[in-house]
């Protein structure tokens, strides 16, 4: 049983960032703007958040600061996302190319900045944010063991983001309008919706969540920022497609990918897998092969927004 709890606790460390970042992805894509830059946004958020934690740790520390750092990370993601906004919304550029550029730019830029400011490329900080046991809640059977032991507050943040996303897309006027911009921007415009502004708003929310998710990945999974989020941003793009752009489905998709990723990370601690003697690299390869296999079966009936990746030009309506 301990192995199961251990696995579930470990799995949350992968699932939560994937969930937050993939939900961030749909805020952009539901509005019709491709978000291929999730990896770069995660890196921007993780870098800014780690830097913030490093700068403030001697004055205050603890989970309040972690929460603040998550907000800082979100802001950094948001600022980075403006680059995609300019290229995709203002200049009607090639969205995949600008997204790829962000993915390549941010790791290099953060290395250059970190080297210039602190001398090394790793941004280290005192990692004191693991909560070994939450008072009261950890006593609840099963749930307490999984969610409230060795927990991070980012798990709760992830849950909040999920509920909010479902609510926004289902019940709010903004959510409806955003979807309209992604399905048929000309029709949306004819109803008096400002397409560019709505898309920009979605884009900025997307950047915020992806940046936040970046720090939510680095803090539980690493002791420092070292210009990598282990390809989670790319996995999140796959989660968006596998989750068919629906917040509820994205939860299941994140759980699926998170489970496989966790298996690759912790198989040495699980007796029967460790005894198989298979190559370490076989486990590392599994999440990516699984993604391809899963997409093989889901790609045909894709529910992607009809106008995804298409620039909106007011002249088209004429």
């Amino acid at each position: 049983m301990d192995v199961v709890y251990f696995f579930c606790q470990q799995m949350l460390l992968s699932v939560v960032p994937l969930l937050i970042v993939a939900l961030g992805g749909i805020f952009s894509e539901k509005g019709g703007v491709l978000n291929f830059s999730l990896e770069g946004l995660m890196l921007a958020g993780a870098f800014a958040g780690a830097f913030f934690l490093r700068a403030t740790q001697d004055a205050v520390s603890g989970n309040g600061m972690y929460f603040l750092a998550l907000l800082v990370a979100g802001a950094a993601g948001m600022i980075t996302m403006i680059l995609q906004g300019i290229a995709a919304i203002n200049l009607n550029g090639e969205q995949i190319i600008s997204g790829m550029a962000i993915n390549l730019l941010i790791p290099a830029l953060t290395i250059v900045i970190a080297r210039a400011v602190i001398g090394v490329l790793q941004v280290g900080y005192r990692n004191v944010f693991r909560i070994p046991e939450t008072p009261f809640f950890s006593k609840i059977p099963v749930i307490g063991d999984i969610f409230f032991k060795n927990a991070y507050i980012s798990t709760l943040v992830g849950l909040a983001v999920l509920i909010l996303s479902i609510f926004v897309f289902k019940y709010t006027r903004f959510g409806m309008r955003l979807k309209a911009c992604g399905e048929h921007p000309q029709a949306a415009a004819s109803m008096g919706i400002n397409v560019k502004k709505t898309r920009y708003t979605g884009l900025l929310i997307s950047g915020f969540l992806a940046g936040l998710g970046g720090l939510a990945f680095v803090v539980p999974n690493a002791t420092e920022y070292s210009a990598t989020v282990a390809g989670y941003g790319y996995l999140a793009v796959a989660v968006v497609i596998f989750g068919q752009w629906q917040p509820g489905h994205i939860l299941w998709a994140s759980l699926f990918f998170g489970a496989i990723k966790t298996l690759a990370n912790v198989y040495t601690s699980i007796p029967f897998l460790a005894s198989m003697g298979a190559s370490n690299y076989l486990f590392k390869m599994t999440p990516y092969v699984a993604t391809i296999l899963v997409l093989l079966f889901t790609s045909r009936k894709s529910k992607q927004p009809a106008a995804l990746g298409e620039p909106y030009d007011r002249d088209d309506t004429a």
Partner: protein
Amino acid sequence: MDKPEKASVRFLTSESAGSLIAAVITIIIGLLLGLLILLIIAPTIALPAFRMLLTGGFGKIGVLSGIGRVLYYAVPLIMCGLAVGFTLKTGVFNIGVAGQYVMGLFAGLYVGISCAGIFGSFTWLAAIIAGAAAGGAWGFIQGVLQAFFNLNAIICGIMMNYTGLFLVSMIVENSKGVYVRGRGWTEIVPDAAVIPRAGLNNLFGNSTAANLSIFICIALCIFAWFILKKTTLGYRMKAVGLNAGAARYAGISVRKSILVGMLLAGAFAGLGGAMNHLGASGTRYAITDALPSQGFAGISVALIASSNPLGIIISGIFIAFLEVGGVGMQSFGLDPDLVDVITSVIIYFCAFSFVFKYLYFKLAARLRRSE
């Protein structure tokens, strides 16, 4: 009355001139932003460091070793650029180049190290052909996934990259005679498997690894240009790239175009990987969890050249030139990653380079009217 236009005017108003101008503008913006970052992070040494970046590729005055080094660096960049650009012409954005590159690199090293006894002094040739075959096979698998299973090309490419990387690590680890246990790297490539220098060492000095492969690169770029420009196959591929629906309606097989494009692109990238690692003597491959940067640099090489195979030769040499300069910047205590910042800024501006093209043509039209 229309008078016949002069050749110079015809060129200046042509599509290629627009692409060229757009490329130059994006490069200048990229370099200026690089300079700006240098001025912010290290104001005192910014200018000499930037000069090193721009001139380091020439090496010391009177010695051609810098240029020799640039030509060695350019080989994988040109091949990866060609792998991206060739498929871009058929409308597929090939992000799987890094995986195809690793596959080719591994097959090349494997044949080079373990088959030297069979092929004798032609081992290098057998090795790079093996590299091309392995890269081509990996590209072909990706092509099948895209053409027959409707997989998103981007996701497919990324997943194939990581799968290829870890697959190679797994095979290397289990290859007796190739892998050095406990060190995490392969044996040194034997001399028979090192690509001949073709006299370039007399020109650039023995310290640089410039070799025959740069000529193979150029020949393959011309070959790709020929296919795209002069053959029915190339015509069909371009038609699919411009409008897949219309091409299908005209009886052109979209699937075949994607498959052929990915097969050849994979072979180019694989060859690039093999030629890079067999180009210098004494190289090993160390197992790593990071994708080779050349795969992504290939994207900028292709985009700067607007995917024109002949332009890719020039843009590949240009990026190699910056990389050599970037290595030189380390003597100022600066990180060579600044070069990656500059190339990614260039890629970013390539996303809307048509804006620059548009402005240029507007300007050109106004100048012509005022004549």
